[in-house]
């Protein structure tokens, strides 16, 4: 049989290009890591190994305060969105009602409309009602996109579930609350958690929506990074990048692992 792709002896050009692209994807990250240990401040050459940028990072009170603001926003927004987003996904799967298509469409908007348009609209809304900008307005704005992402991940899981699961629980004598909490929720939990991790990372990374909704007293980490790097290369930002990339890499790994485990379990059933 003639299998054109598999019969070649030397590496195919697709493999070579894939390797090259893997290099392309990881090159910027490796460059940041390399320079974060570089003693010299300005040159692109190697000035010797040093941890000085990490030391200056952990003594930088502006960075630490910004990290605190970012964590407050991300944790607050994700906690609220986990509840709202999961309820929305379950409601959309369960009920038929007039205007459902419109509701579903609106729930996808935060995933589709560019951040800049959402940011501008939120600012105009807050300014028109003279709502003072603060950490709270940032959290409120982050909930909009966090709940959309969580609902999307949970909906995907719901679509793969047996729709009669809850009915079976009800037939066996569970009341609606028990059926929801003890039967449906454990099945949805992996999706809720990976949705929350995704939303957490997106909230921690968001620059535009935060800058449009934060008042003078609020400064998230991406806002602080942006204001520093637009004036050039800063070695302590290299160190910060490495710390943040390791943190989001760990979160990504946990999320992928949960997804993998739940899909394995589904296959075994």
């Amino acid at each position, binding site marked *: *049989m003639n299998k*054109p*792709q*598999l019969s070649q002896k030397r590496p195919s050009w*697709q*493999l070579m290009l*894939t390797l090259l*692209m893997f290099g392309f994807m990881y*090159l*910027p*990250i490796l*460059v*940041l890591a390399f*320079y974060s240990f570089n003693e010299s401040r300005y040159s*692109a050459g190697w000035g010797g190994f040093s941890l000085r940028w990490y030391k200056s990072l952990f003594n930088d009170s502006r960075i630490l305060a910004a990290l605190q603001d970012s964590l407050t926003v991300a944790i607050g927004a994700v906690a609220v969105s986990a509840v*709202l*987003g999961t*309820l*929305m996904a379950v409601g959309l799967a369960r*009920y038929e009602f007039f205007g459902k298509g419109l*509701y579903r469409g*609106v729930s996808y*908007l935060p995933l*589709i*409309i*560019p951040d*800049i*348009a*959402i940011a*501008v*609209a*939120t600012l*105009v*809304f807050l*300014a*028109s009602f003279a709502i003072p900008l603060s950490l709270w307005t940032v959290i409120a*704005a982050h*909930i*909009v996109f966090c*709940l959309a992402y969580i609902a999307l991940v949970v909906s995907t899981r719901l679509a793969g579930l047996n729709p009669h699961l809850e009915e079976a629980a009800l037939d066996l004598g569970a009341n609606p609350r028990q059926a929801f909490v003890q039967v449906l929720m454990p099945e949805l939990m992996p999706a809720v958690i990976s949705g929350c991790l995704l939303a957490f*990372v997106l909230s*921690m*990374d968001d*620059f535009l929506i935060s*800058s*449009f909704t934060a008042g003078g007293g609020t400064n998230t980490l*991406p806002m602080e*990074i*942006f204001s520093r*790097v*637009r004036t050039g*290369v800063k070695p302590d*930002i290299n160190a910060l*990048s490495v710390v*943040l*990339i390791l943190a989001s*890499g760990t*979160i*990504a790994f946990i999320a*992928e692992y949960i997804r993998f485990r739940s899909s394995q379990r589904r296959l075994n059933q």
Partner: protein
Amino acid sequence: MLLVPAGAWLLLLLVAPSLMILEFSLHPGLRPGQAFGAYGLGNYLQIFQPIYLQVIGRSLYFAISSTLTCLLLGFPVAYWIAVMAPKRWQNLLLVGFVLPLWTSSLLRSYAWITILRPTGVLNTLLSTIGLPTLDLLNQQSAVLIGLSYNFLPYMVLILYASLEKLDKRLLEAAADLGANPQQVFWKVTVPQTLPGIAAGCLLVFITSLGDFVVPELLGGASSMTAARLIYNQFLGATRNWGFGSSLSMLLILAVSVSIALLIKYGDQEPERY
């Protein structure tokens, strides 16, 4: 009802604000703190001034060229992972390829400053091996590199999903019937994965079109885009909320039209034989 809290939140903080942007865009020259004047289309007419048309043209150019770059680079990668790589490595390879997406796009764009700046990594390497240095940072080419880099994983993810569903027996059947590899590719693989190609291109196109961070950090003064222009009308020096709102409406319109086109033409099942 389960849908009320999230619905109320989206209505209050997404739908109502978007309608207010529409309202703002219809009041020419509105600045923060001003009362609404008469209705008019002045803000939309302002977009047709040559300098702003140029900005919009540049945004479209960036979005289209980064989409094509992502397609040309992403298709072979997705093809190799989905069709040619050993089955049990496929998931790991895919996750490995899109892992950088989890890290902040701000930091990944900043990393490209380190690479592309005049005394950066690229030029140090070039001058070490005796080649002339390149002046890429704050040029349009830096924006294209940054956008393609940022959105390539999305393209690979979507193309992979499409290629993975491709029935491999069709490829073998075509080859058995005497098609050469080029014919198999253009007559079987591409038509079968067209919905995936369309969806991937749409996603990269709309995210590139609205991206602010990459052109702002890598593009310098020569790369003003619609997103940067909107930013300037609200947080920058210009402060013209009316004009900014009309640009924002235009951006939303462009995104909606692209999605409507995809739904109309892209959702058709590929022909089965």
